[in-house]
């Protein structure tokens, strides 16, 4: 739980990193990296999301139960994506005939 009170400095530092990442993600989008454009955009977005969850949302300092529930969202989301994509992206595959 957040009985642990963070120094204000932490919030400003995270804010600075988030702004920097926003700048980076916009800049990178204007270079043609092929498929890597999407990968870079998603990597930066995930990194930003992790910072928000850990520091702004205090999960870093929360109980293990909160950690489990927060990670649970990623787990269920992974099931949603893997099973859905497993269907849609393989419809063109021909294994017989």
């Amino acid at each position, binding site marked *: 739980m957040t009985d642990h009170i963070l120094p204000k400095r932490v919030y400003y530092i995270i804010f600075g990193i988030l702004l920097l990442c926003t700048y980076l993600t916009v800049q990178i989008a204007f270079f043609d990296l092929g498929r890597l454009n999407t990968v870079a955009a998603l990597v930066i*977005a995930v990194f930003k999301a992790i910072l928000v969850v850990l520091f702004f949302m205090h999960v870093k300092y929360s*109980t293990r139960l909160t950690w489990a529930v927060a990670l649970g969202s990623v787990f269920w989301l992974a099931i949603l994506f893997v099973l859905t994509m497993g269907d*849609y992206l393989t419809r063109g595959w021909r294994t017989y005939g």
Partner: protein
Amino acid sequence: MLPEAAQHAHHPALAHQFDSLAQQREAATLGMWVFLVTEVLFFGGMFATYAIYRAWYPEAFAAASHELDVMLGTINTVVLITSSLTMALAVHAAQLGQRRVVLWFLAGTMVLGAVFLGIKSVEYYHKFTEHHVPGPGFQFEREYFRHAQLFFSLYFLMTGLHALHMVIGIGIMLVMFWWAWRGTITADYYSPIEISGLYWHFVDIVWIFLFPLLYLIGRHGP
């Protein structure tokens, strides 16, 4: 304020089913997180839909994305990240029991949320005048006409539901402002601000993904 011993016996903010304020706080945080998991999956379904159609029609999606205003999108991203900072600082002030600081940061968060919605409505207005709203009036390059409508349908659905969450968020902050104003929020009892903050940050995270996926694809194209 009650004397120390009496507070432990019965703090006015302590509900009878909890042993302590700390336990009550833990339960509130956990409950909010369980709700946020359902929200992750709610938006997850839309992101999955986006992923499928983008994988099927990459050129049409890139061409349609090119019609969005990167400048306004970037400004809005900065506005929303800043509102997350003011929210985090509001929670911080609430933990320290600084009532006036809480009020200022909550007000700042609401103003930034309103600025975001204002810029968003300017963007929507542009889309209407440019005939980029899916339906009978839709106009786009012939080649991508049908599939660009898919992109714009997803654009309006996803940003629209995100904006709805922002409106609800501002409503929650109004209630928090009222509670902080009348003194319900104290250093002992700040979980309402804390879990409202969790909601606000979650809505920020949704935008962190929406921004690159909607505005930044196909920027390097011809």
